[in-house]
């Protein structure tokens, strides 16, 4: 069965296989927000060490939002309620992706529902105390400036957590917390909030006198307001429930009567330590195993084009999940003691190839009994490279490391980029209100309008202007996947070299990889045979074949007339001097062989390399004809002859492909550019009979 080609439109039309929080009620989303905020994490553990209680979501709270907790930058959201009482989040995105400490935010503000916020970000933390000051000053209306009715509704919302459904009334006692301290207060002057505003009597320790706040001041000052069990009698001195705690204080001692101490099980580990352990076990169980299984599937599963539909769907889904998990793989897991055991288990769980088609060609040489070794080697290698990239993002080898990571993460072009595309399409949907059911091409038009894609528009305006075509889709797909890769590995975007390497790796995933020279350079010395097998370049998959053919077709459509002229010139019989194989018609000149290999090369760089090889071979051929110092005057006519002899089917499309998909345009100034230009000139000369060389 033919494999479905992944296009941008197809990806957009594919539903995201995650929970659609935007379809859930606000209450359910709020519970999820609380759950995510309190999930075990180093951040939460640090808060507990400092005795900071969890902060409940409320109108006005700030939410730190991560696409991934391992990524060093965070966006911030302000939670508020709209006129209909529904939760809305205003998101400010951080401009600098590389360093959270810079804290520079774009001017763009996203208005999301709570559900959309949960879909957009993997990790959200209610974290008002650490939010950048005045980040939302322009969008936030303080409670002190809002009406009494809105303040009362908000008070009801805040106290609902402790006494669901009970309306606050005069005389009710509350515990109000601002994160550092918890004070007692009594609601007074109840009744008609429009005519006789509420006020809160607040106990203060420093003066020994109670203070009186309006309801707005109370809400603005104390984010957590909850009922006390007993109403405070009128005139009673209000107690201080907990002394003010200094920020960044040392972890509380075991005998301290703080919340931390009370939550520590007797004779057990401190809560923070337990959380750390839990986090570690989560990482090992959820991420490491999944990544191993992904690798096992990639290594030993039958190739998707030969598998049945159900099997293929299962493999695709597993590979997509695992690719995401691999991207989130935490540092430090390399030393996991049970890595070998996990590799054995994952190898054993990999589907058997018998009866379903042969294993992938890349791993044909690896026997079943050595799968665990191959898997272990592959994992170690991947971890080493990832760790190196994280440790030395600016090292000179980062480009090669980036390529290795991308090739791992995007190994299967029909699934991994698809997952990334879906993720980014979801973001675009939230940002631009694009509906998944919109007409094909909607995503591209939205992207073309997006400021982030201005560079792409400048570089290849024709691609953005054109209607639906495969070349534009492929360019856009690569760009979108690049964004997704940078989200997971921000250091890869720090250097131009690593950016180029990422793009070239993505192209290889989209079109198939015909050039293993980069991997050769990266392969560690003394690599085991298994590891060598893992690094070997695989055969292009069906989706890559089809995509490459579609792109070439799209490019050829623009130069049919010129191709026809070159083809007509090529039909003239080759010169008698052209050496041929003994007894055969096929020319054996190296230059012609280089030129003939052009359509088979699937990357711009490989095509340029083939052109340089053709020119160098031509120069050597001319030298053999006793021509000293081969200059352009000699080279160009010879190149015209070689191009004519090569009879390339789509020569202009080859040139266009090299220009469209060359990710480092600096090479156009060098010998690659010279070779490409010479090839263009030869084509132009052949296409114009008045300039064609004599045959």
């Amino acid at each position: 069965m033919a494999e479905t080609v992944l296009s941008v439109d197809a990806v957009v039309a594919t539903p995201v296989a995650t929970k659609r929080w935007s379809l859930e009620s606000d209450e359910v989303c709020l519970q999820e927000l609380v759950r995510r905020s309190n999930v075990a994490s180093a951040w939460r553990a640090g808060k507990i060490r400092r005795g900071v209680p969890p902060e409940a979501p409320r109108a006005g709270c700030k939410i730190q939002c991560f696409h991934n907790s391992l990524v060093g930058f965070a966006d911030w959201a302000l939670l508020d309620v709209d006129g209909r009482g529904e939760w809305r989040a205003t998101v400010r995105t951080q401009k600098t992706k590389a360093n959270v400490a810079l804290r520079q935010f774009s001017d763009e503000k996203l208005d999301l529902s709570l559900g959309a916020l949960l879909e957009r970000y993997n990790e959200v933390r209610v974290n008002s105390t650490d939010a950048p000051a005045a980040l939302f000053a322009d969008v936030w209306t303080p409670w002190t400036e809002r009406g009494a009715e809105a303040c009362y509704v908000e008070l009801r919302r805040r106290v609902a957590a402790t006494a669901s459904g009970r309306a606050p009334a005069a005389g009710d006692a509350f515990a109000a917390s601002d994160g550092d301290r918890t004070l007692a207060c009594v609601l007074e002057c109840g009744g008609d909030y429009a005519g006789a505003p509420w006020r809160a009597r607040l106990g203060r320790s420093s003066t020994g006198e109670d203070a009186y706040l309006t309801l707005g001041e109370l809400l603005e000052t104390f984010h957590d307001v909850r009922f006390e069990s007993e109403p405070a009698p009128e005139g009673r001195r209000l107690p201080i429930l907990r002394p003010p705690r200094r920020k960044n204080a040392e972890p509380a001692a075991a005998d301290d009567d703080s919340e931390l101490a009370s939550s520590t099980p007797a004779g057990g580990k401190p809560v923070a330590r337990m959380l750390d352990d839990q986090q570690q076990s989560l990482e090992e169980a959820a991420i490491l195993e999944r990544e191993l299984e992904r690798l096992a599937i990639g290594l030993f599963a039958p190739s998707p084009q030969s598998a049945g539909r159900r099997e293929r769907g299962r493999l695709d889904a597993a590979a997509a999940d695992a690719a995401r998990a691999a991207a989130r793989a935490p540092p430090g897991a390399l030393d996991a003691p049970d890595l070998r055991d996990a590799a054995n288990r994952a190898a054993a769980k990999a589907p058997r190839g018998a009866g379903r088609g042969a294993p992938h060609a890349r791993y044909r040489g690896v026997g079943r009994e050595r799968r665990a070794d191959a898997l272990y080697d592959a994992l170690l290698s991947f971890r080493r490279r990832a760790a190196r990239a994280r440790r030395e993002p600016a090292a000179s080898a980062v480009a090669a490391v980036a390529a290795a990571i991308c090739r791992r993460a995007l190994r299967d072009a029909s699934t991994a980029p698809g997952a990334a595309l879906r993720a980014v399409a979801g973001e675009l949907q939230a940002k631009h209100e694009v509906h998944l059911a919109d007409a094909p091409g909607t995503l591209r038009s939205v992207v073309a309008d997006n400021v982030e894609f201005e560079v792409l528009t400048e570089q290849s305006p024709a691609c953005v202007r054109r209607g639906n075509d495969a070349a534009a889709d492929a360019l856009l797909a690569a760009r979108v996947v690049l964004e997704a890769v940078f989200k997971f590995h921000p250091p890869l975007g720090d250097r131009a070299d690593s950016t180029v390497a990422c793009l070239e790796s993505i192209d290889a995933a989209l079109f198939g990889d015909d050039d293993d020279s980069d991997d050769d350079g990266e392969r560690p010395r003394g690599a085991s045979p298994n590891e060598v097998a893992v690094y070997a370049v695989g055969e292009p998959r069906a989706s890559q074949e089809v995509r490459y053919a579609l792109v070439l077709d799209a490019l050829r459509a623009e130069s049919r007339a010129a191709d026809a002229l070159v083809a007509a010139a090529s039909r003239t019989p080759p010169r008698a001097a052209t050496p041929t194989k003994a007894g055969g018609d096929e020319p054996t000149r190296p230059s012609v062989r280089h030129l003939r290999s052009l359509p088979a090369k699937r990357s711009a760089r490989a095509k340029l390399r083939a052109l340089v090889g053709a020119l160098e071979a031509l120069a050597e051929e001319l030298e053999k004809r006793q021509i000293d110092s081969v200059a352009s005057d000699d080279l160009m006519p010879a190149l015209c002859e070689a191009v004519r002899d090569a009879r390339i089917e789509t020569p202009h499309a080859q040139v266009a492909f090299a220009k469209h998909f060359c990710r480092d345009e600096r090479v156009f100034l060098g010998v690659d550019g010279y070779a490409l230009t010479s090839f263009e000139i030869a084509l132009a000369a052949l296409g114009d009979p008045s300039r064609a060389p004599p045959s």
Partner: protein
Amino acid sequence: MPIARFKVVLLGEGRVGKTSILLRYVKGERVPAYSDRQVSTLQASYLDKRLSLRAGQSASLSIWDTAGQERFHALGPIYYRDADGALLVYDITDFESFQKVRKWVRELRQIVGQEIAITIAGNKVDLESSRAVPEAEALDYAASVGATHVYTSAKLNKGLEDAFAELSERMATRRNETRGPGAAGLPGAKRSSISIVDDPVAPKKKDSCC
């Protein structure tokens, strides 16, 4: 300091000595004899040369030789698109080759405009006795089109260093003027490419959010 990369095209009629200039300039005195067999492969058509500029900057020249035959003349624009500089070579003993230089200049100015730095080189000054191009006419013409004029002899290795050094200085100056000081060092600064542009680096401060 980053190295500025410049593309230089070598233009001129056939047999005026473009290739000889190229080889002599890049190989210099290391070529044992002018008439010896020189270099192989592409070294006579495309050459890389690194040199130091006056401001302490380094420059890398990608020098493209062009086919001088008439049938490739009309395809010149493909050669010199995105070029930063052009060295137009004529033979001082061949007035026709000087007339061709006028055609090249007109074409360069029409297609590339004032962006490109032009140097006109009168080659084969070792054959001064056979000069066919009046010196005053050549100098006046160069001044009139905003180009500099140099005399060279590939055979005697004369004037080549000065010609390329002067051309490099002008290219660097133009790039600095166009994109501001320091831009000359940006590789590929002329072209746009897909790259994630980060914000200017601000002083780091301690992150207090985690």
